[in-house]
């Protein structure tokens, strides 16, 4: 049955091609289009991540094709919306691989979705460049042969936060983490690295991604000796926590993860956002970087391109993750052409590649390729991001 359908499809496509070349005036040498798949959480609660990723992909596809494509091959990025749903994401990935026949897949937006598709990707032997942060996505590397990711790992973010707290002479911390995939892997890293930095975790609270009131958890935190609160989640949870802390009159320092690195956090939390400190890629403070920074050029050009299309102040690091994923794939495609296995090898050999998330140095043992310098600490001051220089 499938064979019949395939034959039928092939005939339709052939007929289409003949018709197409006929109106093209009989042009025969049309370079094959390179097809890449993308799965982003364009709608649903992870849409603050997926929406800018989709916008970035559309912008890059346009830019690359306008500039003549990849070695004369047009680039076609097929984007599916996962609706922030792991099952939907898995179905879309299967569709990309089996029906659309893509060379590689970009995304998904969230860690939970990324973990959900690992087996499918590995079995299909198609390279995946994930746009989600959890280090579990690319570790252990020998089981993640086909999987790469562009966002900086939680480990780097945790290290950055602990280094800052140590500087401030703080050693007793309270955790409040999202119970979803992003928050729970972040929490694991916070717990795992605490001993290395002599941090004592005096409270370990959680909240649901959709929760609207966290005063109970914060009240228990206030009953402890905590000197700082570390929140790990994506909006709107962290904004609720910032507001609840203000309402409860808690003046402990509030640190967050790179999960709040978009303007939505400031819009939602309003006044309560001020004073919040979080690690994030340099994209947010691109203008404040010195010209000698190796990422400055790519950061500024991405930011200008994106804001020209989608409006002033819309750039965020999530779109940046998609930018890095696509640009690395494009560079691999330029190098080896349309062969999934060769693309994987080329991705693994990428070195000194300046992206928005940092300078990537992939290897057989590191499928993220970023090191400590990838993060900077940012403080919200009067509703603006300010680079906290050491």
């Amino acid at each position, binding site marked *: 049955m499938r064979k019949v359908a395939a034959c039928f499809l092939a005939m339709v496509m052939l007929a289409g091609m003949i018709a197409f070349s006929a109106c093209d005036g009989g042009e025969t040498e049309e370079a094959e289009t390179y097809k890449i798949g993308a799965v982003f959480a364009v709608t*649903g609660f992870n849409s603050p991540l997926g929406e800018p990723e989709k916008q970035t992909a559309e912008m890059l596809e346009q830019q690359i094709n306008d500039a003549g494509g990849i070695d004369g091959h047009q680039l076609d990025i097929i984007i599916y919306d996962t609706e922030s749903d792991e099952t939907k994401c898995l179905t879309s990935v299967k569709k990309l691989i089996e029906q659309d026949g893509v060379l590689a897949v970009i995304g998904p937006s969230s860690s939970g979705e990324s973990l959900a598709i690992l087996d499918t990707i590995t079995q299909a032997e198609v390279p995946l460049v994930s746009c989600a942060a959890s280090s579990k996505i690319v570790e252990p590397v020998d089981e993640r042969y086909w999987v790469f990711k562009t966002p900086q790992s939680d480990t780097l973010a945790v290290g950055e936060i602990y280094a800052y707290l140590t500087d401030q002479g703080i050693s007793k911390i309270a955790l409040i983490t999202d119970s979803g995939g992003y928050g729970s892997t972040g929490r694991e890293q916070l717990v795992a690295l605490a001993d290395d930095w002599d941090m004592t975790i005096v409270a370990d609270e959680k909240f649901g991604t959709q929760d609207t009131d966290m005063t109970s958890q914060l009240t228990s935190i206030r009953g402890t000796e905590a000197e700082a609160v570390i929140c790990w989640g994506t*909006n709107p949870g962290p904004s609720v926590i910032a507001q609840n802390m203000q*309402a409860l009159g808690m003046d402990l320092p509030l640190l967050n993860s790179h999960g709040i690195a978009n303007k939505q956090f400031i819009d939602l939390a309003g006044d309560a956002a001020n004073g919040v400190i979080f690690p994030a890629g340099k994209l947010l403070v691109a203008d404040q970087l010195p010209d000698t920074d190796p990422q400055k050029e790519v950061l500024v050009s991405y930011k200008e391109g994106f804001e020209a299309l989608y409006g002033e102040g819309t750039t965020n690091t999530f779109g940046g993750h998609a930018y890095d994923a696509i640009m690395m794939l494009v560079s691999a495609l330029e190098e080896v052409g349309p062969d999934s296995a060769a693309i994987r090898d080329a991705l693994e050999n990428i070195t000194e590649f300046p992206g928005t998330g940092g300078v990537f140095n992939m290897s057989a043992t590191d499928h993220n390729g970023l090191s400590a310098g990838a993060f900077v600490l940012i403080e919200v001051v009067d509703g603006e991001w300010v680079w906290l220089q050491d």
Partner: protein
Amino acid sequence: MVTSQLVQYIVSGITMGSIYAIVGLGFTIIYSVTGIINFAQGEFVMLGAMIGFSLLGLGLPLAAAVVISVVLVTVVGIVFNLVAIQPARRASTIGLIIITIGGTLFIRALAGLYWGRDAVPLPAFTGEQSLRFLGAYIQPQSLWVIGVTLVLMAGVYVLLNRTLIGKALKAAAINRRAAALVGIDARRMSLISFGLAAALGAIGGLVMAPLSFASHDMGVMLGLKGFVAAAMGGFTGVWGVLLGGLGLGLAESFAAGYISSAYKDAIALLFLFAVLLIRARSLVAGEEGS
């Protein structure tokens, strides 16, 4: 410190519980009059908050935005009844319940298209400066939530027990056929119950949104928890829902504070499970009674 913690848990439990009670009251009114469990109740809450947000964005003063939003959502409730429920009134109760689920998805999707997927903030009615009470912090908006809940509960109680319309609604609730025989128009009662439930939902959404945020999908969890509150109250009477809502809110708050915040939503679902096990028979019996 321990007392102040306890008081804080109670305050946030009562605040959230009041919201669940308002949402649950909408469920109760429609169920008792028509036998339908209207799953679109959570969407009325969302519409109230989101329309309020849009009106404030147009520069309207808060009071005007609240009133207009409640009126508009009431109209939505009535139109929903006219367009989706009335034409299918010969369908079984289960069929009608499934129609309300369809309505829920439809309204949520439209809201997502119109307002986008992001959460939006609403300003507190009267300032954000917290009050101190026995070592706990109370947001003025929490007092608004609790006060509005009590007023609504009392209002609905009076409406049902002291007015002709209320008595007609009650009569239709007790025995639809007998009510029809004495000249009570069941269709009109159904219409009124939807309008009333929509208005209650909208008010609930408007008073709670400043405490957290409003978003196109806020109706999902609120609808579920309001349903639990209504089920705990036995789907009858005002005070049962109030107790159900407060019980759920307090249980969640204590669970988050004393046991583990990871199990907060599990508590609500556990309540639902228990209630459905115990009450399933009476819910079905109510349906047969119609």
